[in-house]
Every structure is written in structure tokens, then in C-alpha cells.
């Protein structure tokens, strides 16, 4: 229909309506005399008008009401999510509805779980859930519900799972208790599923009959891994444990299976799941929960303090061995409870077979269990590597941030170990040329103790993968659980737990480094593998002293450095061939030189320790860098220093301190154009280390690239307004570009941050001297000179010299520069490029100074 025709119809329609109904027919007949089609059209519309009185006059509120009256997700029926057509509702629970759906791509029936909308408000929880569920999906164990897929569409997040025919254990138990043999069979199957999950560091945390499923053909499946945590994190406030604890029946379903540590709010590990297995087993046989009480509070108290009545009371035929195993599950204390699902399954199996292993789950068997579970870990690890290689097309990942391992035990002494392992893994991996960037320890340290989304870390540090992990102690065993995540999509690339006797703690780090390298699919040479596998000591006590010493030194306090040095000295006394500990000593002595030991004493110690380390093992990059620091900054032997640093970078191209020190060496020689690249590299590796950016900005200043310098400084200040070098560098660049007021403001900021320091005053005196405020400059200068002898008031003579240069008193200036030279001023090393010396350029006295500083004039 053309618009003209439609317009014609509409006009006639309205004209006709404006007439009396009786005269409409005549009107139309005359108006459409030559167009019978038009006549029919308008006539039929007028007829509709007469009978359509109520038609669509009121909004379809019945539909709205109907929609609301029914389950909201009803609207999802018949819809297609991804390539899954939702067909019918199977069940609903607190964590969403489950539907039967048809997978239109693979033409099979599946179950689709629609996650509750409130998850959308907790993107972190959702992500964690997804990550964990992906890890579960990767397990593909016959006793764990398979997860096929995830998706999100139109605000609906869903998980696609295998469709099971059968019933939950809860439904089964409604018909009464089970014969003990059948109950034990189910518990064994649950343990096998758990063992696979635990080996990957995945804990269920909410095992109960509702989450266990028995298929029609008798198979047992564990459902809802990882849900418990999400549930807790996203629960509306009113559903917190504290508030419901006093209401009868509230949360009973879950409370009844909580372990004592969970009740206390402590983290739940594998033994927590085994406690729940014990509760479920007890309930299957007896028909009642072991700690059932009328209210939640009483139930919680019972979990913490009471023993359930023995099963033999209900059925004398129950074997004593089963009672013993149950006690091993339900033990209040972690030290007497089962730790391994594998061990428990083995024990349960032996009940049915009289000729099996001795009935007492004593030490030898536990040990065997440990060996077996280690084998299982290794096999599973291999399987997941194979899967990764087989399934993933993605390019190898070339950047990584190893976040500080979390000390998950209550034992504070483990802090040093988590730091030590983190540092060792970073150092081992940064040696690999295949990895372009492994973020330095000083930067990742800022994530310590924070729960961060690996994708956020990826964005902030511009890395493609992130490793997180935690260590804990179980008896004599050190357990390290780690997870490697693709920072781009949050997908878990790999996860594993490493379990070692505490005495072998030093083996954990090499194992972890190797596993990470393998899982990043780096093509390693034999030499690379040797580097990763390298252990620097075989002496467990020396190792412990070493990590403890490093940890204390890394605190960067005078006290920490002093204690750290003492422990490292003790470490090399126990193992005189411990090269890495000598390297640590060299670094710690160097740190001491900038805090409490005069350089004249500290530097020879740095040198001796570094040389000793290199004698023992020439491949330690850290020792080469420490040696370079002494040679360059103290002995002014630039050529030797550069040689050491280049060697360090050959050995460990990703070692941030090497790039940093290289930059300073070059800048000090006035090779500021070359220096900038090394500072940029150092910043790439150690992005949160503000001093790298400070150097970038300072070198721009030395290069007279003031705008770039100002820009860097402003960014630095924006990031951390309390970092003084941002203000110092900004002030210097402003001073050189005539922005005197801004320069003064920045020097004042600095002074405010460091009220007792004489340096802001010295810098201000120079600023006044060159900006026509000479009398103010002289007043400040006199103050500085008077204070020169007082402790903590000493100003590097170089800066006094600068003030005299600003005042135009050339001879006095040179006298002070000479003093600076005698005092081995470090700041003086910039004289070749420092813009504040420009008025002295060409003076033979300046050339002479530079020559003596081994800086080519």
C-alpha cells in the first residue's frame, strides 16, 4: 500500500466518523463512486470501529498478572539460551532453577541451571564460581556431575550439565535408612569424587544428601561444587549464620553437616568435606543426623563439643571397623581426623573385604595413602597438561604475575616461607627467555593479603596470566595449593596442590616453578629445565634460616635488615656452599648501607659476599648486580659494573633490579639516552615500584626533556601523592622551565612529607637563588651551613655547591663540589648532565672533576 493510498483511506475514515452513523453510508458511496476497492476498505474499517469498542482499550494487565503469578522463569520455557532450548522445570533451590533442555547443536538432552539474578550483583563471586566450576568440569570424574558449558544471555547466567535420571540422596532417605553395606558403597563413591577434586585443590564445602545424587543405574554423583562459597558471599544480610542461628530449623539443611572448623568460621579444607561425608554416612545408616538438635544454636554447639551415639546402638550388626572410620571422619580436631578422601575410601573398602589390609588405620597405611595420593596428583596433573595441549589453540602465554602465596595456616612463622617460595618462583621463572615478563616481587608484594580478581591484576600489570596460591600445614606436611589463571578471561589454566614434608620445603618451590612453566606451554630447553629444578642447598635448616632472613631483610627496616643479615650469616655457617645465601647477604648489606651502616663499612661487605657467591655459583644474577652496585656507585668503576650487569641480564633477562641498576649506571655516566630504555624495562617488570617511574622522570629531566618529565611526575603524584620523588622531580623540571611558583609549591609538598629533612630547604635555596630572590636564598643557605655539623642535618655538599652556582659565586661553588667529591657524593654522579651546572660548563675545573669521577667530560 502506498502512503498516498493509506492517507486517502484514513481521511475518508475520519470524515465518515465525524458524520452521523446514519449518513455515513451515503457519504462513502459518493466519495468512492469511482473506486470500489477504496469503498470496501474504508467500509470494513468503519465496521471494525463499531464492534471494536473495548478492543485493546485497557492494557494487557491480565498477562502481566499471569506472568507474575507464575514462576518468573516460566518465561524462559520455550526460550533458547545459547544453543540450549529450555523445555521443562526439573527443580528449584536457593541457587537457581534447573531445567531440562535440548542441546540443539549436539542433539542431546542436558540440564541447564539458571543462576539466580542476585549473582549478577556479585560479579566477583560469579567469576569465582565459574572458575571453580570450570576446574570441576576439567576433572571429568565419574562421581562428579559433569559440567559442559557456561553462558550468559540477556542477563541470565547459566551452567549446562549432564542430565541425570534418578534422585537425590535426600529423596532416597525420605523412604528410610539404607543397609550399611549400601551406605558404605555410596560413601566410597563420594570419596573417590572428592579425592579427585581435592587433588586439584577444589573443596566442596557443602556436602549433604541434597547434593548427592544416585542415578537410576546406581551411580553416585556429587553436585554443586563451589556453590557453597557463592551462596555465602551473595546471601542477603538477613541470611547470615548469626541471625538464623537462633531460629529453629533455619539453615538446618546445611548446618547439620558443617565441620567444627566451619562452625568456627575458619577456612574449610579437605578434612571439612570428610567430616561431612561422615555425617552423611551416619545419617544413611541410622536415619538421623549425628548432631541433630531442635535449634541451630544447639546443633552448632553439638558439632563443636559432642560425640554422636555409636551406630551399634541402632544396629548391632554394624562392624566395629565402620564405627572407627566414622570416628576418624567426625573427629573434632584436624589432627585426628582423616585428611585424605583416598585414605577414607580405602578404609571403607576394606570393611567389605575381610582379607584386606589390617583394620587399624595406623601410620603405615596413612603413609601409603600419601604416596598413592601423590601418584594420583601427578597423574591428574599430567592429564590436565595433556588436555591443555590438546584442547587449547591459544598462543603460549608470555607474561605472568605470581601473587604472594597466602599463608593459610594460623602459624605466623609460615609467613616467611610463603614469601620465600613466592620470590624463588619469580626468580626461577624470570630466567626463562620464553617469558617476556614475570612481574617483580616488589610489585606483586602490593597485592599481599588482598582478595583480587586475577583479571584485575592482569589489567593493572598488563600480564596475560596470574598465579595465586596458598600454603598451609597439616601436621608435618606443607601443602601448597596453586592456581594459574588466564588473566584475559579469568579461565583457570591449571591448578594443583603440592604436598611435601615440611623438612623438604625447599623442593616445593622448584616443583611449582616447573609445573607453571609446563602449563604455560613454554618450550623449555634442557638448560631451562635445569635452571628451574635448581636447588641451592640440601640443608633444610640452612634453607629455613635463608628464607627467614630474606623475609626480614625485605621489610626494609633497619631492625629487619640487621636481623636478616644475622640469619643469613647463620645459614652460610650451616651450609658454607650456599651461594644464594651469600647473594642474599650481599643484597642485605647493600640495603644496610642506605639505612644504618656507613658506606665505607658496608660496601666492602657487599663486595666480599657477592664475590663469594659468584665463586660458588657464577650463575646467580643477584650477586652480579650487587657486585655492580659496589663497583659502580662506590668504586666508580663503570666499565666493570656494566660488565657485571650485562652478565646478570644474560643469566636472568627478567630480573628487574638488573635493569634498574643498569639504568642508574648509565645515567650516572651521563648516558641518559641509553638509560631511559633500561628504566622503562625495569618499570615494565616492576610497574608498581614508584622509584622506576621516578627515574624515568628524572632521566627525562637530565635529558632536558622537561615536558615528558613533568608528565611522568604528575602521574606518579596522582598514583601516590606521598611519594616524595614525584614532588622533587616535578619541582626540578618546573624550576628549569621558569615555573617558579609551582616549583616552590612542590618543594613545600616535599617538606610537608618529610618535615625534618634539610634537602627541601637546600633545593628551595637554589630555586630562590636563580629566581631573583637572592636574599631569601642566602638566609636559607646560612641556616643550612650552621646545621651542617648537627646529626640528621647534614646536607650533601653537592647541594650547597648548587646553591652557590645559583648565586653566581663560582669559586665557592667549586670548593663545595670538591668537598662533595671527597665525601663520595652519590648525587654528584649526575654532574655531566645536571642542568643546574650548565653555567659552569667549559670551566676546566668542572672537566677535571668529571675526569676524576671517571665521567668523560
Amino acid at each position, binding site marked *: 500500500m502506498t502512503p498516498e493510498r493509506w492517507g486517502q483511506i484514513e481521511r475518508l475514515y475520519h470524515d465518515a466518523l465525524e458524520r452521523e452513523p446514519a449518513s455515513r453510508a451515503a457519504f462513502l458511496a459518493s466519495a468512492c463512486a469511482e473506486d470500489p476497492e477504496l469503498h470496501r476498505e474504508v467500509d470494513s474499517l468503519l465496521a471494525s470501529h463499531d464492534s471494536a469498542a473495548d478492543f485493546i482499550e485497557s492494557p494487557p494487565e491480565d498477562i502481566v498478572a499471569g506472568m507474575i503469578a507464575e*514462576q518468573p522463569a516460566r518465561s524462559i520455557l520455550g*526460550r533458547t539460551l545459547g544453543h540450549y532450548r529450555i523445555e521443562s522445570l526439573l527443580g528449584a533451590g536457593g541457587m537457581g532453577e534447573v531445567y531440562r533442555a535440548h542441546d540443539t547443536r549436539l542433539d542431546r538432552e542436558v540440564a541447564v541451571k539458571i543462576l539466580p539474578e542476585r549473582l549478577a550483583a556479585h560479579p566477583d563471586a560469579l567469576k569465582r564460581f565459574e572458575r571453580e566450576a570450570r576446574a570441576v568440569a576439567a576433572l571429568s570424574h565419574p562421581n562428579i556431575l559433569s559440567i559442559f558449558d557456561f553462558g550468559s544471555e540477556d542477563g541470565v547466567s547459566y551452567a549446562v550439565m549432564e542430565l541425570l535420571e534418578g534422585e537425590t540422596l535426600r529423596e532416597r532417605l525420605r523412604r528410610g535408612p539404607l543397609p550399611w553395606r549400601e551406605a558404605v558403597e555410596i560413601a566410597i563413591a563420594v570419596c573417590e569424587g572428592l579425592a579427585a577434586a581435592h587433588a586439584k585443590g577444589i573443596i566442596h564445602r557443602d556436602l549433604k544428601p541434597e547434593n548427592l545424587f544416585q542415578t537410576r543405574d546406581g551411580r553416585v554423583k556429587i553436585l554443586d561444587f563451589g556453590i557453597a562459597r557463592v551462596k555465602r558471599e551473595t546471601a542477603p544480610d538477613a541470611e547470615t549464620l548469626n541471625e538464623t542461628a537462633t531460629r529453629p530449623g533455619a539453615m538446618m539443611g546445611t548446618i547439620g553437616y558443617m565441620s567444627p572448623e566451619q562452625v568456627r568460621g575458619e577456612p574449610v579444607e579437605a578434612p571439612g568435606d570428610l567430616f561431612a561425608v561422615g555425617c552423611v554416612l551416619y545419617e544413611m545408616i541410622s536415619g538421623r543426623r549425628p548432631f541433630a538438635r531442635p535449634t541451630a544454636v544447639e546443633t552448632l554447639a553439638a558439632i563443636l563439643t559432642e560425640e554422636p551415639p555409636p551406630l551399634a546402638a541402632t544396629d548391632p550388626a554394624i562392624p566395629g571397623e565402620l564405627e572407627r572410620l566414622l570416628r576418624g571422619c567426625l573427629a573434632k580436631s584436624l589432627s585426628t581426623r582423616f585428611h585424605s578422601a583416598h585414605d577414607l575410601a580405602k578404609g571403607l573398602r576394606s570393611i567389605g573385604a575381610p582379607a584386606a589390609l589390617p583394620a587399624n588405620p595406623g601410620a603405615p597405611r596413612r603413609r601409603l595413602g600419601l604416596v598413592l595420593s601423590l601418584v594420583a596428583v601427578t597423574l591428574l596433573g599430567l592429564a590436565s597438561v595433556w588436555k591443555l595441549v590438546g584442547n587449547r589453540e591459544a598462543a603460549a602465554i608470555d607474561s605472568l604475575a605470581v601473587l604472594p602465596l597466602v599463608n593459610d595456616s594460623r602459624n605466623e612463622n609460615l609467613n616467611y616461607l610463603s614469601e620465600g617460595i613466592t620470590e624463588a618462583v619469580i626468580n626461577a621463572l624470570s630466567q626463562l627467555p620464553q617469558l617476556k615478563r614475570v612481574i617483580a616481587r616488589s610489585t606483586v608484594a602490593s597485592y599481599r593479603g588482598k582478595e583480587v580478581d586475577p583479571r584485575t591484576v592482569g589489567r593493572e600489570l598488563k600480564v596475560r596470566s596470574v598465579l595465586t596460591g596458598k600454603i598451609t600445614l597439616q601436621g608435618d606436611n606443607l601443602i601448597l595449593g596453586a592456581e594459574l589463571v588466564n588473566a584475559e578471561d579469568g579461565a583457570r589454566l591449571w591448578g594443583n596442590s603440592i604436598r611435601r614434608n615440611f623438612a623438604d620445603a625447599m623442593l616445593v618451590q622448584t616443583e611449582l616453578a616447573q609445573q607453571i612453566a609446563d602449563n604455560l606451554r613454554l618450550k623449555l630447553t634442557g638448560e631451562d629445565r635445569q635452571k628451574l629444578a635448581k636447588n641451592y642447598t640440601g640443608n633444610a635448616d640452612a634453607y629455613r634460616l635463608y628464607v627467614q632472613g630474606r623475609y626480614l631483610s625485605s621489610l626494609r627496616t633497619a631492625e629487619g635488615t640487621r636481623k636478616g643479615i644475622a640469619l643469613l650469616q647463620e645459614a652460610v655457617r650451616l651450609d658454607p656452599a650456599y651461594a644464594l645465601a651469600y647473594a642474599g647477604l650481599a643484597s642485605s648489606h647493600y640495603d644496610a648501607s642506605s639505612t644504618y651502616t656507613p658506606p665505607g663499612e658496608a660496601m666492602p661487605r657487599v663486595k666480599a659476599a657477592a664475590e663469594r657467591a659468584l665463586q660458588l655459583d657464577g650463575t646467580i644474577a643477584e650477586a652480579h648486580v650487587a657486585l655492580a652496585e659496589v663497583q659502580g656507585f662506590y668504586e666508580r668503576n663503570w666499565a666493570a659494573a656494566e660488565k657485571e650487569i650485562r652478565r646478570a641480564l644474560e643469566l636472568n633477562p627478567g630480573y628487574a633490579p638488573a635493569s634498574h641498576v643498569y639504568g642508574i649506571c648509565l645515567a650516572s655516566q651521563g648516558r641518559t639516552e641509553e638509560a631511559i630504555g633500561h628504566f622503562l624495562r625495569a618499570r615494565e617488570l616492576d610497574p608498581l615500584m614508584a622509584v622506576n617511574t621516578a627515574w624515568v622522570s628524572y632521566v627525562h629531566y637530565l635529558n632536558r626533556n622537561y615536558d615528558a618529565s613533568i608528565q611522568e611526575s604528575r602521574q606518579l603524584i596522582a598514583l601516590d601523592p606521598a611519594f616524595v620523588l614525584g614532588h622533587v622531580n616535578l619541582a626540578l623540571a618546573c624550576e628549569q622551565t621558569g615555573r617558579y611558583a609551582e616549583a616552590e609549591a612542590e618543594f613545600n609538598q616535599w617538606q610537608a612529607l618529610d618535615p625534618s629533612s634539610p634537602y627541601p630547604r637546600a633545593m628551595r635555596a637554589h630555586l630562590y637563588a636563580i629566581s631573583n630572590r637572592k636574599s631569601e636564598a642566602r638566609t636559607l643557605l646560612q641556616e643550612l651551613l650552621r646545621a651542617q655539623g648537627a646529626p640528621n642535618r647534614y646536607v650533601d655538599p653537592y647541594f650547597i655547591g648548587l646553591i652557590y652556582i645559583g648565586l653566581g659565586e663560582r669559586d665557592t661553588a667549586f670548593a663545595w663540589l670538591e668537598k662533595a667529591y671527597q665525601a663520595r657524593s652519590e648525587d654528584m654522579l649526575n654532574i655531566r648532565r645536571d642542568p643546574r651546572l650548565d653555567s659552569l660548563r667549559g670551566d676546566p675545573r668542572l672537566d677535571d672533576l668529571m675526569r676524576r669521577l671517571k665521567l668523560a667530560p
Partner: protein
Amino acid sequence: MSSTPDEVTQLLVDWGNGDQAALDRLMPLVQAELRRMAHRYMIRQNPGHTLQTTALINEAFLKLVGQQEKHFQNRAHFFGVAAQAMRSILVDYARAKQYEKRGGGAPKVALDEALTVSAERAAEVVALDDALRELAKIDARKCRVVELRYFGGLSVEETADALKISAITVMRDWSMAKSWLYRELSKGEKNDS
């Protein structure tokens, strides 16, 4: 939902200025909010309470844009978007109802049988939606008028504001569209029988 009232308001302004892309971004926000509200009504389990679409849309407006938005033009634009969103939600629902009655096999889980929407009623809404699509091809503005009045529950004046046309025009469009749609739907009935 990660949109601030300011963002929503800006999108409304942009759309008012003829930016179609703004509507594409606005629609999912409004739809999600309407769904969420319908969900909340369900949770309250108060099926006896008759819910008005205008009330729902007003609530969505307060949620997404906020009380402080005094600019009546933006409000009018919002109602325009909301009516469209409402149409798509209700029609989706009606289609699902039809599907289910055709043997989708879903168990009945209505909280109140009295409020259950019959398959016939669902079919009517779906047919109306189809007819509206046809009308839009001939006269898009009339389709919008129906959408706002019927699915959005807007008054003649509100509809006029949302479409920036006079109230007289709204009434004329409404009359013509109603007659046309009624005729089209009657045709369908005859064909079916």
C-alpha cells in the same frame, strides 16, 4: 545492572535527539529492570494485587533514572522505551505460554490458578503483536501509539508527549489503528475457523 541514572538519562536524551544506537543500549536495561520488577512482585507472592503496567513502568523509571529527574521530556522518552520493552516481555511470555500448551511438557507451577493465562488469551496477544508488525510497515507512528497506549498503559496526553505530536493526532491514530488491527485480527479468526 551497571548503569547510573545519569547514563540512562543521557541515553534518553540521545535517543530523543534521534540517536538510534542509544535505544539499542537502553532497551536491554529497561527490559532487565521490568523483568526484575515482575520477579519482585512474584517474590512478594501477592497475586491478588492487580498490577498496572503503568505502575510497573513508573517503578522502573524511578529505579533507573531516579526521582530527581524532573525533565519531563526525558520522562516521556523513558515511557516510550519502556512501553516497547514491555511489549517484548509480554509477547515473549505469551509465546512461551503457547509453546507450553502445544506440548512443551512443563509442569504447572502457577501460584494462583485463577490468574493463569489461557492459551487462547496468549494466542490473542501473539496475534496482536504480529498484526502490529504489519501495521508498522504501513504506518509506523500508529504502531507506536498502540504500543504506548496498550503495552505501556499511557494516557493520550502521555502518548502525545512521548511522540511529540498533538493529543488530537494521538486520538485519531488510535481510532484508525484500533479499527485496522481489529479487522486484521478478525480476518485471522475467520481463516482459522
